[in-house]
């Protein structure tokens, strides 16, 4: 090789060696690093996004000794939960009710709201299945620890009469939202008494509240609105039937296996009813899009 070309060839080979060598070196480092990452073991503290309940701060309890919240706190908690982007499961912190208490409250709620099944003499509803999880809603604006009343117990239940989901505030235990599907003893709609009962069980007194109701062919909308309050109670009921509205939802509730091996089956011939109860801040639109009545049959206002 020409002497003058030797340095050029040498430098080219050396630079290629540097380039390839750096790649190989990095690859080796990566393998070691990945091995460490994928064989990691240890323990981690069970995270909780909420802080313990500061009883000295709130100081309020209800008649049963549970902590109680102001209307503003309730409104804030509901707004926060509605704005959530994700839910973070966690264990109860001090000041929050336990899973047993949540399921117990759920059973009593079902019984008091007339949704009990099984033996009619029992005060609690006979639950074939219940599942309770505690989570806190996380919004985009959240940073740091949240207040304990931002957590909700989600109690999913199934009994002879129906199934549903109850949302209980983790601090007060009040059921602030419920969505029930009933396939036995379908109710006639939502009465003022039922809605007041729901508000009471939610832990929210609605003195001098106006009750209004719109009754349609298959739907009922009921609202309990205090004159100067920041919260109101809303109830929606609509009847489902096979081949008609929401037939896909009717198909979804088809079969459940009970503890004794028997199965219950909902047939389209019986039909189903969907009931939604909710405590909402007054700025929220009272009538949701999917429950707006197509034809109002009866409009009742009761003070």
């Amino acid at each position, binding site marked *: 090789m020409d002497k003058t070309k030797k*340095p*050029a060839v*040498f*430098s080219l080979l*050396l*630079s290629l060696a*540097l*380039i390839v*060598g*750096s*790649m190989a*070196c*990095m*690859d080796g*480092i*990566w393998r070691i*690093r*990945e091995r460490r*990452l*994928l*064989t*990691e*073991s*240890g*323990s*981690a*503290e*069970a*995270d909780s996004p909420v802080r313990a309940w500061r009883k000295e701060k709130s100081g309020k309890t209800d008649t049963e000794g549970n902590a109680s919240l102001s209307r503003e706190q309730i409104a804030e908690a509901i707004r926060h939960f509605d704005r959530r982007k994700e839910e*973070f*499961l*966690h*264990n109860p912190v001090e000041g929050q009710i336990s*899973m*047993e208490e949540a*399921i117990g409250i759920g059973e009593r709620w079902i019984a008091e709201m007339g949704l009990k099944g099984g033996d009619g003499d029992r005060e609690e509803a006979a*639950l074939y*299945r*219940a*599942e*309770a*999880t*505690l989570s806190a809603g996380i919004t985009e604006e959240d940073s740091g620890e949240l207040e304990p009343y931002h957590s909700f117990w989600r109690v999913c239940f199934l009994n002879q009469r129906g199934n549903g989901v109850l949302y209980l505030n983790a601090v007060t235990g009040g059921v602030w939202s419920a969505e029930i599907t009933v396939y036995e003893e379908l109710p006639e709609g939502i009465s003022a008494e039922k809605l007041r009962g729901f508000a009471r069980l939610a832990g929210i007194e609605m003195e001098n509240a106006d009750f209004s109701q719109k009754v349609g062919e298959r739907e009922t909308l009921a609202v309990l609105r205090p004159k100067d309050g920041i919260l109101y109670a809303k109830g929606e009921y609509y009847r489902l039937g096979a081949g008609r509205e929401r037939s896909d939802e009717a198909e979804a509730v088809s079969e459940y*296996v009970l*503890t004794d*091996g028997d199965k219950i089956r909902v047939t389209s011939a019986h039909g189903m009813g969907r009931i939604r109860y909710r405590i909402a801040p007054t700025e929220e639109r009272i009538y949701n899009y999917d429950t707006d009545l197509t034809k109002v049959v009866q409009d009742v206002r009761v003070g």
Partner: protein
Amino acid sequence: MKLFHKIFLCFALIFGLTFQSAGYLLLDFSYENAIEQGKRYAFQEFCHNQYLLQSLLYLEPEALAESESLSRLAEEFTVPAALYRADGTFLFSSMDTQPAFPSFTDAEEGRLHFQILEREDKSCVYVYDRVEQGETDVWLVTETDISGIVDAQRGMIAYFQRLYLLFVCIGIPVSYLLSKMLTDPIKALREAAKRIAQGRYSDRIRAGGRDEIGELAASFNQMAEKIEEKIADLSAAAREKEDFAANLAHELKTPLTSVIGYADRLYQRSLEREEVKSAAAYILHESMRLEALSRKLMDLFVLKRQSFPLEELSVKEIFAGLKEGMDAMCGERGVKLHIELQEGSIRAEYDLFETVVQNLLDNALKAECQNILIAGEREKSAYRLTIRDDGRGIPPGELGRVTEAFYMVDKSRARKQHGAGLGLALVRRIADVHGARLLLESDGKTGCAVRLDFPLPEGERNG
């Protein structure tokens, strides 16, 4: 190794190290975050399944004793899970493969335990903790598959390396061109230096840009220019010395030849008194010429090598001191001397100034003039001294050369008058020492005027 190669290697080294290091740091951060997210997700799944188990045990405390309940539970769990009794014995599992776990007795309250394992083509996070519900006390283990996360990260690493190779393929020719661009001006500089070394002193390089290379090129051109000037000056000085030596040899040879000839004649022959006197007269005459030549040469050499302190002198006073000698010179030839001087001072060396006046008078007398006028005028910033005669003058074409050493317009006439052609050369040199400007004016027929402009001292200007 050439600079070009060094630059190219540096590019390769810096690029390789920087790209890989930056990539590693970025990917490591991403990978670690992704694994943390995976772990967090696994913890959430554990929490969810823990609640499922607790809810079941709350409603059916004896559920774990019945195999049908366990099968139903397996279906309820959202992820593959396993149950162990409080003492660590196996109860049930829906996992494909049972991993080996550390002792359950090491569990800490309030803390979730985890282990990440990679098996075959799956990476999973195993989370385990004690679950107590009523009188039931079990260990729950959940398996959360994070293979998707790991595969995504490995994909990113592979993509990064492909990107690296792509940038290398682009970078190599780019860095080659950049290195070439940086070193080409230096090569041009080297070639120019070679040409100048070979004698092409007028060669220059193009000095573009304001960077260090541009500045180097400009400095190189400046240096080349100075070298060219110096070479030209040295060549001129060498030629001048050659000419001087040649002229000196010639001026020495001529009178010596005559002296030797006449001396030989006196030595060889017996001559009549008149012939001896004639020969002796000729020898004397040529010897005097040689003596005058040697004296003037000495003066020229002294002027070259010595520095002369100048002092402020009144022109009128200088000429007052020189008048006797000038009158004697002119009186011998019957030439009338006129002196008209304005008041003024110049910075001069008296003896040198005297030499100037004597040489100029001598030239005027040799030009067979009748009148000599010495006039002094004070200008704005100079004192103008003019020595004008009405002799034969100097042909205009010769005016530029008469101040050269040994140059004589009419050699034969000058030698007769003991001239050596050094007088005006001496006057020019003395004028340079005084910072004065020398100017000769003549039409070659009606005489010659020699003008010397001496700079006025600081206090005399614009006065």
